[in-house]
Every structure is written in structure tokens, then in C-alpha cells.
């Protein structure tokens, strides 16, 4: 027993210890080293543009208004106690969740409609439906703003046409929230549509044929074949869109600028108002950092499902 141990203990290092000469050369030739070297530029970019600003923001958020003194978590505590900020949290969640649900539903329906069109007509419609997504949102939101405008509003003109009372689209908190969600949905639905269309095309036709023979109706094919096959792409698009929508800035900024009475502020616009317009940069940094834990929770849940399904081979 003891003999055996000694042999192994002495044997292993002798076997794998490389000769001293050429160690560096060998290291350079290893695939993993090469891969690391080749990703180095990307790592530098990520470090400079993501990691550094992130930690800098954390540092900033712990300073006082003049950025002369370290105040710990005071900014966060202050924010949580403020009613406007509680409103901003609620509004951001409401905005992101309802806009993402609406975008996903509309995108799904559009993708299905497109998928059933014959190939030639499909390309034309696909192009047209993508338009909202390719126009810079600041510009298209201006057009929407004009449609909502109280005195020249095209919508109110239509309402008047059917004899209904005019709606204060951007003046009333409820309608203003509806308006920003509507515009965001209009802007983002084409992204879902194109992703779902690609996913639909990747489901093998034979699965639908097998389901048809197994006795599935159109609805049951959707329920038992299409949806399960698309679960990963749905999860990932929803997560991606949640992140982007949560951090939305331009639509609210152009359409309502957070008003009326701060009732449409999101994290992004509120951080801008507090940090840049009112000049309290540390407080603004604290506002935007509040997004991080919320999004992290979403991401963990969604990505866990994705990786489980990937392991099962979907």
C-alpha cells in the first residue's frame, strides 16, 4: 500500500512536468492561449465601455451633490423615501412589462400572418412592417407627438369626426402613460415579428404534418408544436426587450418629458432630469443603478429556463 502511494506520488510530477526550455513557446501554441489573445481587443473594449463606467457609476452614486464627500448609501436611502421615485419604479415596471407583452403579442400575430403569406407577397409586407423599427425613434416619436397634439391632434380630429369628445392625450396621466406605451409598442413590435418569423421558419414542416395526422387542429398545432418549439426565442427576445424598454429614454423624453406631474417618468428620463438638468449627478447615478438589480432578477429567471431547455436539446 505505502509502496504504491510513493510510486504514484513520485511518478505523476515526473510524467507531466514539462521541460523548462520552451515553456513559453508551448504556452503560446496552446489553443486557449491563442483564443485569449485574439479576444483581447474585445475584452479591452468591454472593459473600457462597460465595466469601467459601471464601477464609476457606483462610485459616483456614493458621493454628495458637489462630489466632494463620500456619503455611502445616503443617496439610495433618500431616493427610496421620495414619493416621486417610488412612482418612477412603479411606472418603469408598468411601462416595460405592458409594452413588452404588447410587443410580443403583436409581433407573434404579425409573424404568423406573414408566415402564411406566399413567399412573394411576404417579402413586401415584411419590409413595410419593419419600417417603424428602422426609423430613428426620436424622429418617429416627433410624428407621434404631432398626432397627439392637443390643438392639431389628428386623433382628436378623427374622434370629432365620429362625434366623440376630444382626449387630452398627453395632458392626462392615464392617457399619457397609454401614449408612451403605445408608441414604444409601435416601435418595438417589428423586432419581435422578425425574430418570431425566423423562429417559425425554423420549425420543420414535418412536425406540423405529423401533428395534423395525430389529429391536431390549427389551434392545437400552435399550442403543442409552435409555442414549445419557440419557447427559447420567446424568452430571449422578451428578456432583451425588457432590458431595452426598461432603459428607454427617447420616447418619453420627446413625447411627455416625464410629465404630466412626473407621471410618465422612467428610470432613464428621471435620472437625466435629476442628474443633468438639476445638476445632482451622484443622485442621477443612483437612480439609474436601481435598474440593475431589477433586471438581474428577470435575467436570472429567464436565462435559467433557456439553459435548461438547451440542455434538453430544444
Amino acid at each position, binding site marked *: 500500500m505505502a509502496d504504491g502511494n510513493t510510486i504514484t506520488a513520485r511518478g505523476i510530477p515526473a510524467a507531466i512536468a514539462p521541460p523548462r526550455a520552451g515553456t513559453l513557446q508551448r504556452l503560446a501554441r496552446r489553443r486557449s492561449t491563442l483564443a485569449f489573445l485574439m479576444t483581447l481587443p474585445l475584452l479591452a473594449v468591454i472593459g473600457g465601455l462597460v465595466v469601467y463606467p459601471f464601477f464609476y457609476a457606483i462610485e459616483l452614486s456614493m458621493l454628495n451633490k458637489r462630489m466632494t464627500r463620500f456619503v455611502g448609501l445616503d443617496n439610495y436611502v433618500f431616493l427610496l423615501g421620495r414619493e416621486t421615485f417610488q412612482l418612477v419604479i412603479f411606472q418603469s415596471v408598468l411601462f416595460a412589462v405592458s409594452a413588452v407583452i404588447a410587443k410580443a403579442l403583436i409581433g407573434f400575430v404579425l409573424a404568423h400572418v406573414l408566415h402564411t403569406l406566399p413567399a412573394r407577397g411576404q417579402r413586401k409586407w415584411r419590409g413595410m412592417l419593419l419600417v417603424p423599427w428602422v426609423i430613428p425613434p426620436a424622429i418617429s416619436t416627433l410624428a407621434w407627438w404631432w398626432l397627439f397634439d392637443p390643438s392639431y391632434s389628428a386623433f382628436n380630429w378623427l374622434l370629432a369626426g365620429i362625434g366623440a369628445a376630444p382626449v387630452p392625450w398627453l395632458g392626462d396621466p392615464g392617457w399619457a402613460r397609454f401614449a408612451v406605451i403605445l408608441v414604444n409598442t409601435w416601435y418595438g413590435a417589428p423586432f419581435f415579428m422578425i425574430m418570431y418569423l425566423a423562429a417559425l421558419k425554423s420549425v420543420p414542416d414535418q412536425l406540423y*404534418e405529423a401533428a395534423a395526422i395525430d*389529429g391536431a387542429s390549427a389551434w392545437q398545432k400552435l399550442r403543442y408544436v409552435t409555442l*414549445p418549439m419557440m419557447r427559447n426565442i420567446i424568452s430571449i427576445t422578451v428578456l432583451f426587450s425588457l432590458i431595452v424598454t426598461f432603459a428607454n429614454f427617447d420616447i418619453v423624453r420627446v413625447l411627455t418629458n416625464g410629465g404630466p406631474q412626473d407621471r410618465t417618468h422612467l428610470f432613464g428620463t428621471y435620472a437625466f432630469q435629476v442628474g443633468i438638468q438639476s445638476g445632482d449627478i451622484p443622485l442621477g447615478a443612483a437612480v439609474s443603478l436601481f435598474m440593475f438589480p431589477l433586471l438581474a432578477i428577470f435575467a436570472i429567471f429567464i436565462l435559467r429556463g433557456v439553459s435548461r431547455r438547451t440542455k434538453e436539446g430544444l
Partner: protein
Amino acid sequence: MAQVSLRRLVKKYEGDVQAVKGIDLEIADHEFVVLVGPSGCGKSTTLRMIAGLEDITDGEIAIGGVVVNDIPPRDRDIAMVFQNYALYPHMTVFENMAFGLTLRRFPKDEIRRRVDNAARILDIGELLDRKPKALSGGQRQRVAMGRAIVRDPKVFLFDEPLSNLDAKLRVQMRTEIKKVHQTVKTTTVYVTHDQVEAMTLADRVVVMNNGIIEQVGPPQELYHNPTTKFVAGFIGSPAMNFIPARLENGAGALRLHLPEGIVLPVPPERTKRYAPHAGQEVLFGLRPEHLTEEKPTDKANIATFQVRPEVIEPMGMETLVHFWLQGTEVSARLDPAVPAEVGRPLTLAADMNRMHLIDPRTERVL
């Protein structure tokens, strides 16, 4: 279970591709029918029309006496096994097999009973909780068959179910399919381009070519009495030799004049049948297995002639010898014990009882 009738069935695809050109076929209850033919001959199209996955351009399909032209697949009570299995990747083996029954609202214990029974027949009881990704090709094949069996449908449809398997597994699964059919006895339509599969599985083989049916019959009949040159050449491996020849009538006996001065006597029993064609150019058809070394037999109508082999292929259980008669390649199957050498004259014996004569213009067997 039911019979299947195809009547003047036609399929035109967009762009005027006529894939099926009016075929008639009666498939009896419990029968195992194999559609066989070269790629693109319309086998899959025919099968998919029976399944209801393709519209019927013209003609009629009846299952169990009911015309199903306008009945969707789910109401036709058929089950299909696809070439790449088409298992639902997000469902376990059990769920895959149970799906059709679940949709039809079968009670849970009935589903359990049927799936277990099918799993026992196919020997996949251990795999019921796995997802298709965790199965081998042969296991997926079994699950796909299980999905068909549990439904207990009127008709099974198979579209080249074995072509994704390796050679050894294919032979094994072929036996398996035959066994399953003997157990459940469901009427089966099976598509393949492999004539060995067709011969071994079928009660009746349907040879298709170019959208039409060339010949229908039991495997042995297609082998011994093909009615067209296509069937004669398609069934059997290696393929039948076709040698241009002239049929001559000399002194009451018919003779075949082959290239290079070879003359073979036609058996007297065939004189009446071939006499009207005397003096014509014909194609002489003889399978390689009927062109062998000389054997010490007393069988009548064996004709011998000498050739110079040009290619010799030892196969183990036999040796294939190839030679050319004025540009026509001819193969013979010899006992491996026969010493054959390239270029050395070799005496071959043609079993004229097995000969075929084909009219080269109509390509029909005379």
C-alpha cells in the same frame, strides 16, 4: 383496419409538374403494399395524398370504402412514419407516442395501456421518459413506429422509414417492421426506393416510374414475370442483362443471334409464344444469376458459349464476371470456386428457361 382504393389519381404541382399521372390501385384489408421506384417517380406524392397532406388534383382516394378527397388528415384515421421520424423534440418518448390519443381525449389509463403495449412490442420500455435528442437513430425509428401503433389506425403509411439508418440497422429494422405487421395486421402502404426492402417486406409490390404504375404483383411474380423492361431491370440485383439480339426461325426451332456470333437456342416450350416475332430485332434479357459456370446437370435448355472476362469481382459467396458484347456490358454470377481470369476464355452456361425477350420499341416484355 380497411382497404384503400386509388382511382385515376392525378397530382399536378405548380408549374405544371405532373408528379402522378393517373394511377389505379386496390389495396386489400391487412395487406402490406410497397411502392417502389426511382427517385422522383411520385411515390411520396402518392403516399402524401393518401395521408391528406397533399391535395388531390384529380381522381379519388377511398379508405375503408369512404371517399376521403375532402377529409383532412386528422379525420382520416391513418398514421404515418416519416423518413426523419418527425418526433416532437420537446416531448418525452411517452408524450410523443401518447400525443395522438391525448388529442382524441382518450382516458389516461387507456393511453398508458396502449403506450406500454406498443413499447413492449418495440422493446422501448426503458426509453419512455427520454427526450428524442437522447435516442439513437434506430431508437427514434422505433418511437416513430410506436406513435403509429398506439393509434390503432385504419392504415399505416411509411415514407422511406429506414433510409436514415446504417446498413446493418436497416436490415434489423426491416425484420422488425415485418414482425410488427404480422402482430397488428394493419393495412400498410410503404414507400421505398430500395428494391430489396420492397421484395422482403411486401405482400404486393407496386413498381412506379415517372408518375405511372409499371406493374403490380407479389415479389416473386415481379422477379420471374416482369411485364416491362423497366421492371425487369429494376427488380433484382445485380440488374438483368439486356443484350441486343435477332430472333431467327430455322427449321422449326427459334434461335437468338447475339453479337459476336453467339447463337442460343430458344426453349421449344416458348416457340409458340415467340414465333410471331421471328425475324425481329429484340432485347434478350437474362439475369446474372441465370448466367453461370457450366454445371454437371441434366437440366434441359442450358446453352453454353465462350467469353473473355474483362472485370472480375469476388464477392465472397459468389464471383461477378463482367464482359462486353459489342459495347453491351454483361454480368454473370459464378461460384467462387470457379477459376476465372481476366482475358482467359471462360465457358458460361445460360439458363434459357429464365430468358426474357423485350420489344426494344415498346419496351414491353414479349
